[in-house]
């Protein structure tokens, strides 16, 4: 794998930053160079949140992902804002439970996953971000399954270790989700 630049975007509270953190830690476990950069400021309160993750074999230059290889969108404003920026041939993963609008680009691959519904149906409300991360893992193979799990373990604070299993389950659901 060469460089992989990922932009996660959605509402504040959907776990956008956490998804990026798990991915970043998994890449660290994989022995890669990486960076994680959140959007910060007033837009995080009820508005859109986004998070740039860069993974590479070389030192990371600009950590701000302007043209993502992979765009994860968990709300409509994020799709409208970032769709045009994805590199040609790139991948857009959409939480289709929330975003009903179709992707208009024809030069990118689109994966629509009913992530929020899948999470809710399995008693994992709020874990749609991990369902999507599972799917992202399956689509890109950015790390090994072992390192993805280690990345998750590193990202969940010790005090919240009880959440590990739910997150694991959500990731598995994403990996197994229908095309």
């Amino acid at each position: 794998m060469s460089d992989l630049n990922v932009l996660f975007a959605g509402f504040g509270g959907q776990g956008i930053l956490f998804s990026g953190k798990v991915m970043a830690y998994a890449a660290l476990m994989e022995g890669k160079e990486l960076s994680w950069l959140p959007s910060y400021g007033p837009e995080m309160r009820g508005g859109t949140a986004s998070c740039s993750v860069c993974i590479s074999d070389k030192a990371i230059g600009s950590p701000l992902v302007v043209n993502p290889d992979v765009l994860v969108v968990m709300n409509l404003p994020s799709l409208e804002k970032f769709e045009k920026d994805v590199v040609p041939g790139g991948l857009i993963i959409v939480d289709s439970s929330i975003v009903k609008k179709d992707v208009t680009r024809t030069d990118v691959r689109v994966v629509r996953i009913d992530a929020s519904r899948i999470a809710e149906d399995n008693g994992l409300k709020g874990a749609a971000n991990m369902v999507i991360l599972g799917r992202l893992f399956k689509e890109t193979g950015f790390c090994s399954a072992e390192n993805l799990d280690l990345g998750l373990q590193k990202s969940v604070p010790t005090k919240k270790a009880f959440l590990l299993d739910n997150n694991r389950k959500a990731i598995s659901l994403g990996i197994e989700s229908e095309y």
Partner: protein
Amino acid sequence: MNEKVLMKGNEAIAEAAIAAGCRHFFGYPITPQTEVAAYMSKRMPKIGGVYLQAESEVASINMVLGAGAAGVRVMTSTSSPGISLMAEGISYIAGSDVPCLIVNVQRGGPGLGGIQPSQADYFQATKSTAHGDFHILVFAPSTVQETVDMISTAFDLGDKYRMPAMVLSDGMLGQMMEPVILPEAKDPDKDSKNWAVSGHGNKREHNVVNSLYINPQELEDLVKARFERYKIIQENHQMAEEYLADDADIIIVAYGSSSRVSRSAIDAARAQGIKVGMIRPITLWPFPEKFINKHIGHTKAFLSVEMSMGQMVDDVRLVVNGRAPVEFYGRTGGIIPTPKEVLEQIIRINGGVQ
């Protein structure tokens, strides 16, 4: 050796300062720096240190002066408008020959400006931090690991030359997470501070830490002695990283976040056959003149890339002194330039792609 962990730049600053033996932090919250103070407020009480949220930046910096005068490792951190408020205190600290660490996680200005990353405080940090003839050491990290490594250097050199040291970060470097190996904890050498006002049980002459000198001759002598120290620093402590500079036709000069953007642009330009490299100042004061002078001759043009309207470019021009064209590209107000924008500048200066 410590394990490699992911850490935010701001939290890494705090942990690195603790590892360097800092046990006194005085500050006031301001975005995008607040994680430094928040982290300190959790850690300091657990390790017998002092964390104090003062009523203002003015109070914070004067507490830093007091603690520094007593000979302990002390720091504060803030973001751009906070440094403006601290200006008077920084001048007093410099005028009292007291070491301390000041962190500026820059945001867009002027005024309250914005909260997004900026490098518009270069002039303030390197030239006009406050009133009077003085300098402070200014370090500009470009990664979280470098930030961590630099904190200890900044404390050590500040102690050695008895002067304030600043780490000039920005909102991007402060907020981003990267893998980092934290340094081993060390105890600073307290005995070397024989000038400190720390109590002596009447066993020696009392020390005085002061910045008021009514007699102009005394003040001139003192300032001149300080500038002799500055000369030694300029001679011995210029730091910069060179990236693909040896065969470069075009050399970008960029520090901190804008150097990361420039590095991406340089890689893209090299892939198109353009010989471009970079000198990345690590110390902004002393400005790394030696590194620029070394590349006069083969370099057809210099390009200063900054997140400002053009500040460091003045220092590049002073060093180059007409021996090559010096160009500038920058974004400001909290906008981070893209690698594509910088690449366009490289191609323009190169006269297109051959």
